[in-house]
């Protein structure tokens, strides 16, 4: 078991470590025979992240002894190239893939390796060109009837096999329903690290490690995560986090067709049918402009005004959890921790006070406009433009301006 302890002779109770600990595991406590309060670490809360070691560099009073368990390590020099999993749904390549190809190019250039894409589906080969035009140097294509619809078993088995053969050092995947489900399975199968929902990806030059930064605890803190001893380093990224790769019709690349023996591939689940959701007219995650309503609307009919606003400005309708729970609007509109995370160019929060659970779902929007009676509410404090007043008076005026 790993251990962490404070050398009481070296600790002066300065409290720097207390401030550094993201898990509030350190307190200053009176020790017997000592005049000062010294650092005490609560083992139950400690996650051995090492933040306190950095804080205590000057005194070196905190020590972490990590277990000397000889964990299987791979020969990292065998692994190279950056891969992007080119997710497709009904033969359309998911938009997040082009964003991953943008970021992937940057990482591959830093590492001086190739950027490759993996495309899986049925009658999908013609799509490989699009990937090359968007930065890919090489595209591996699995084109087979078995892959007509996404199912975790065959997809994860084929990708794992290809990883075993080709040994990429990094794999980026979209944090979509497909990506999250299947990346987890692949990482479990090949025993490597997977970091979900990265918002920052960079290379540590000395080690070639991928520095994966992601929000933790609902976005209150950020953590940078490394997969030091395992390869490939796998990460998922949500749509709209990175910039899309630019199209270059002259870009050259290699297409490598992969074949497999279907009888040898595990395929336990059976796809029966796809039922499209027609009720969801606007995909919130895709929208560039979102107009959201909250409890401040005061009544369910308030959403008619929000809809009118959204229509006039060309945006989608969002909602706070309170309004969804009250039954004023469908859950598919909910923005926030238990709803959707969005990052549009413009987010208009009408009568939303801005509880932390809502904020974490929209605070990376480019511009936030808040319309609220309460000038002191959290949403008004973080808004790019805060408009104090009655939304029933202000919104019609805005709509009037927009329709001019």
């Amino acid at each position, binding site marked *: *078991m*790993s251990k962490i302890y404070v050398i009481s002779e070296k600790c002066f109770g300065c409290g720097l470590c207390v*401030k550094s600990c*993201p*898990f509030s595991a350190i307190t200053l406590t009176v020790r017997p025979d000592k005049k000062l309060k010294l650092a005490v670490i609560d083992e139950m*809360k400690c*996650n*051995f*992240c*090492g933040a306190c070691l950095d804080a205590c560099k000057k005194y070196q009073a905190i020590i972490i002894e*990590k277990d000397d*368990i000889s964990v*299987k390590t791979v020969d990292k020099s065998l692994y190279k190239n950056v891969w992007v999993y080119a997710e497709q*749904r009904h033969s359309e390549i998911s938009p997040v893939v082009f964003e991953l190809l943008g970021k992937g190019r940057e990482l591959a250039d830093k590492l001086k390796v190739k950027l490759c894409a993996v495309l899986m589906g049925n009658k999908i080969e013609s799509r490989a060109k699009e990937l090359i035009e968007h930065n890919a140097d090489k595209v591996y294509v699995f084109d087979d009837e078995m892959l007509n619809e996404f199912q*975790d078993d065959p997809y*994860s088995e084929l990708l794992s096999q290809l990883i075993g053969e080709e040994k990429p050092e990094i794999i980026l995947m979209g944090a979509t*329903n*497909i990506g*999250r*489900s299947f990346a*987890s*399975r692949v*990482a*479990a*199968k090949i025993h490597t*690290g*997977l*970091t*979900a*929902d990265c918002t920052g990806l960079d290379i540590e030059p000395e080690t070639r490690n991928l*520095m994966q930064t992601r*929000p933790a605890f*609902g976005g*209150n*803190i*950020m*953590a*940078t995560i490394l997969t030091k001893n*395992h390869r490939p380093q796998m990460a998922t990224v949500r749509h709209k986090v990175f910039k899309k790769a630019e199209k270059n019709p002259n870009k050259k690349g290699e297409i490598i067709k992969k074949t497999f023996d279907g009888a040898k591939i595990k395929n336990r*689940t*059976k*796809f*029966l*049918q796809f*039922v499209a959701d027609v009720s969801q007219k606007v995909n919130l995650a895709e929208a560039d402009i979102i107009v959201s309503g909250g409890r401040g609307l005061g009544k369910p009919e308030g959403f008619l005004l929000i809809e009118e606003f959204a229509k006039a*400005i060309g945006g989608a309708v969002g909602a706070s959890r309170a309004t969804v729970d009250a039954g004023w609007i469908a859950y598919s509109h909910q923005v926030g*921790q*238990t709803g959707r995370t969005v990052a549009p*160019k413009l987010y208009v929060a009408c009568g939303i006070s801005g509880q*932390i659970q809502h904020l974490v779902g929209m*605070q990376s929007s480019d511009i*936030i*406009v808040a319309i609220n009676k309460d000038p002191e509410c959290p949403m008004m404090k973080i*808004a*790019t*433009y*805060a408009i104090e007043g009655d939304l029933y008076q*202000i919104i019609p*005026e805005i709509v009037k301006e*927009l329709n001019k």
Partner: protein
Amino acid sequence: MNIIVLIKQVPATTDVKIDEKTGTLKREGVEAQVNPFDLYAVEEAIRLKEKYTGKVIVLTMGPPQAEKALRECLAMGCDEAVLVSDREFAGSDTWATAYTLAQSIRKIENYDIILCGKQAIDGDTAQVGPGVAEMLDVPHIAYVKKIEKIEDGKITVERMMEDGYDLIESPTPCLLTVVKEINNPRLPSLRGMMFSKKAEIKHFTAKTIEADKTKIGIAGSPTNVMKVFCPPARTGGERIAGEPPEQATKLIIKLKEAKII
């Protein structure tokens, strides 16, 4: 039908606050709760038991105080509870957690279905459920919004996707992660609460589950936290004052300047 539900105890996030002075998360005295998404899994398990008979075993990995979360699930209607707890598990990432849970499940009697919430609200990774399925070598279906039927060792479910849903059939045993749309979790009944108070909770340690030490805790985790920091707080911008028509005009000018409209 035997069902295992995997749950996680998480901080009740409404109360999580950042200490403005130190920039740390104040988890001191914060109430703990069952991860909200896991309640849908618990409810679905109880409904399946009511329909097909059998029992529901709720399992969690966590510190000793996670026992409270297990008791809440017993009060809702689960029959047995297992707490997998050991200091050796500290610092586990999703891979090591999935391994620990899979090893624990192997120590439990036969099961037909494993249910989990789609993700935990503190980590937000959604990785543990599918990971457990892979390590147990059973199929999984993530984001299940409805169980249509179970017959002849096969289960048919609706898998929620961004553009609608897929109807998928899987043999059992299998693992499902469920979304909010699947049901409305019940409140504990008085009888359930009485039962949960007295119920005995099984404790598993690293030794009980015969864990491979190279696969648990911080040493067994492929990912490690390199550093943690507070994101630069979003600072407020401009206040647009005036009467509504004036406010509207000013806003439109701003949005035009930003090339939004």
